[in-house]
């Protein structure tokens, strides 16, 4: 490998040719401040538009300052990263950025977790030229079911654009206009609702400021909790327990299942349940559907389509509805765990506790922003009453807990309520990429072969690579499995399906890189993939610690079928637990 030698802050260093000054400096422990720059290590994607100019450094012999994130090291280069000229330039740049940035930090949803705010502090900015302008944001409100855009707060770092286009290949957002009018927006500056947006929330996850945030549904939840005529139940998605602790200063990867349950009880929920229960139920339905299609296919039935695609992820559902409407009969018809939970809660459980569904409020805690949209879909309500009334993100829950003056650190572990809080390890691993298909294999294997599974961990299905494939031996039948996380990777597998080249029997797709643990509603990881890895490890730890780890062995699932549903894929199960997909071409609504 060709290398170059250079000097950074009087330290000599040899680096591979083509490396940027910013990265070279990091190698010798010098962190040059950056704002627009972001690196997603595992995806080998870098956002370096060199737009903000915070990372400028002085290069000997060069007339102007160089943006270190985008300037390559050269032989003999002499770089200084914190001269008076550099520090003054950084402050000036920051003052320019702040000059037309709204000054409403006191009430901004990103306050305290805003990279722009932190950078202003780091650079010691105490006055802003043009204070009088942009006191408050005046951007026209673009509120979609999941995401709020406030483009007065956009600093044109273009991270969201990179996420939306390069990583997710959704193409909803692009930089538009010039100068002061420049912003990142959907086509024709329409609202997100009329764009190709899937509400995956990855733009929100990387936005350094308050320009992109989630719609906050905690006020509605609080109102329901305060209403004595309502019975309020909550379900928590698997990925939440592996990340919530981060918002309370705990190490990434700390499992807070018990403390989370305690916090929810303290907040006043009447029943604290687990989406993992519904994940087990999903496996029963989706696994049965897989085996049915597989058996028919093997018996030569050409109407049995393979591969079967998972359908737990609402961002993914939105994606294939938008881009692959011709393949909408390929994914499983099983609803997502969130919606299965809602459907069972408002029928089976409502009957059990003798509460009318109108007086039963179902809240979900999700690592996801697309779940907000999903629970608002018309087909998931009965007579205008939603199966899941409100979905709030991990971040919103953390804020809610803090609002209630609770400290997660000091709460004693508590247990989920029965019956909708009982789950197996198979339900837990839904939170990580590969988990759904692993859970499905544990059940499908035993049902298909009639044999007991010797080894529960399908390590070949685990990992964080964007596209993975594995062959699982189903007693002589090699079951070919594909896994994609991130919508860009899903697109690759879908295109193979469309062209008839796909060799897989089953494909799992999660819209977010890493799966739900990397969801758009999780604590912000600022591009650090070590945090995602730690969360994945926590999920598998919880699976390991469970006495039951196969969905079909969950005694409460067995009981649910006996008492209520009959058997998997029964008519009743179809009515309550399955759905169908739509191609909603979002019409252009120009003229605003």
């Amino acid at each position, binding site marked *: 490998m060709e290398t170059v030698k250079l000097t950074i802050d009087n330290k000599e260093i040899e680096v591979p040719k083509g490396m940027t000054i910013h990265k070279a400096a990091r190698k010798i422990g010098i962190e040059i401040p950056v704002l627009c720059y972001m690196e997603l290590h595992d995806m080998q994607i870098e956002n370096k538009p060199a737009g903000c100019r915070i990372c400028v450094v002085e290069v000997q012999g060069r007339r102007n300052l160089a943006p270190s994130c985008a300037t390559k090291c050269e032989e003999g280069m002499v770089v200084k990263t914190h001269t008076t000229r550099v520090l003054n330039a950084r402050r000036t740049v920051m003052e320019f950025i702040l000059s037309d940035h709204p000054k409403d930090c006191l009430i901004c949803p990103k306050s305290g977790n805003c990279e722009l705010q932190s950078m202003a502090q780091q650079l010691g900015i105490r006055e802003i030229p043009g204070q009088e302008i942009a006191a408050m944001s005046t951007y026209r409100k673009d509120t979609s079911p999941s995401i709020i855009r406030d483009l007065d707060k956009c600093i044109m770092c273009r991270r969201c654009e990179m996420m939306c286009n390069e990583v997710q290949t959704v193409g909803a957002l692009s930089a538009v206009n010039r100068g002061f009018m420049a912003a990142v927006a959907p086509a024709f*500056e329409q609202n997100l609702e009329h764009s190709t947006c899937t509400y995956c929330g990855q733009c929100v996850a990387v936005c350094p400021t308050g320009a992109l945030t989630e719609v906050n549904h905690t006020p509605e939840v609080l109102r329901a909790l305060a209403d004595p005529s309502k019975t309020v139940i909550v379900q928590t998605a698997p990925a939440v327990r592996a990340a919530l602790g981060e918002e309370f200063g705990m190490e990434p990867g700390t499992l807070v299942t018990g403390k989370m349950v305690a916090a929810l009880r303290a907040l006043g929920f009447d029943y604290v349940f687990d989406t993992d229960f519904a994940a087990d139920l999903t496996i029963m339905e989706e696994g049965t559907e897989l085996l049915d299609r597989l058996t028919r296919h093997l018996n030569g039935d050409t109407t049995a389509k393979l591969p079967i695609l998972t359908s737990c992820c609402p961002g993914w559902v939105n994606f294939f509805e938008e881009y692959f409407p011709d393949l909408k009969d390929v994914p499983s018809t099983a609803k997502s765990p969130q919606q299965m939970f809602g459907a069972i809660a408002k029928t089976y459980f409502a009957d059990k506790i003798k509460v009318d569904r109108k007086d039963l409020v179902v809240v979900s805690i999700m690592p996801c922003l697309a779940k907000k949209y999903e629970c608002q879909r018309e087909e998931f309500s009965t007579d205008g009453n939603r199966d899941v009334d409100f979905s709030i993100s991990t971040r919103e829950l953390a804020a809610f807990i803090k609002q209630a003056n609770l400290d997660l650190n000091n709460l004693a572990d508590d247990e989920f309520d029965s019956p909708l809080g009982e789950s197996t390890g198979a339900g837990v691993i839904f939170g990580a990429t590969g988990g759904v298909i692993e859970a499905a294999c544990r059940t499908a294997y035993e049902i298909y072969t009639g044999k007991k599974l010797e080894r529960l961990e399908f390590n070949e299905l685990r990992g964080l690579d964007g596209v993975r494939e594995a062959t699982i031996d189903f007693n002589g039948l090699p079951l070919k499995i594909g896994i994609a996380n991130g919508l860009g990777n899903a697109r690759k597998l879908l295109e193979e399906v469309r062209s008839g080249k796909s060799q897989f029997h089953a494909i799992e797709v999660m819209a977010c890189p890493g799966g739900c643990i990397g969801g758009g509603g999780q604590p912000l990881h600022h591009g650090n993939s070590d945090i995602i890895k730690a969360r994945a490890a926590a999920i598998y730890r919880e699976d390991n610690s469970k006495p039951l780890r196969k969905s079909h062995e969950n005694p409460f699932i067995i009981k649910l079928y006996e008492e209520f549903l009959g058997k998997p894929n029964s008519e009743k199960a179809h009515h309550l637990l399955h759905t169908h997909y739509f191609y909603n071409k979002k019409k252009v609504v*120009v003229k605003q």
Partner: protein
Amino acid sequence: MSSIKIELRPEDVAKIKEICASFNNDPQELINVLHKCQEHFGYLPAEVQEVVSGELKVPVAKIYGVVTFYSFFTMTPKGKHPISICMGTACYVRGAEKVLDEFKKELGLQVGQTTGDGKFSLSSLRCVGACGLAPVVLVGDKTYGRVAPDDVKNILKEYE
């Protein structure tokens, strides 16, 4: 950015597809494709951008980004009689701005806009190479020289 909602006729769609195909549907050729489309339609309405998006497999948001970045591209149709006022140095120092203001007042338009009846559109440009006639106004292909604000009403009358 506003645009007028239009219905593309099948031959319009065919024309856009033909233009895209002449550049091998190469996304790298987006700007050239947009140039040709604007040459044909006179402007780039949202519907045209959507067809281009489908052909070149470029998200329509990106195309809109390019259209709004380059001032040459426009999403507003030109009027039947496009009016251009030269704001080059010679015309400017001889009062082109006052002439422009008069047009704005008479037509109730800003630069870049078109009248509701589609008759007139207003734009400014830099130097048409007729500095001896400054200030210069173009209406369609016709050139008017040494235009004073008082002449504006009479010029517009010619096109009524």
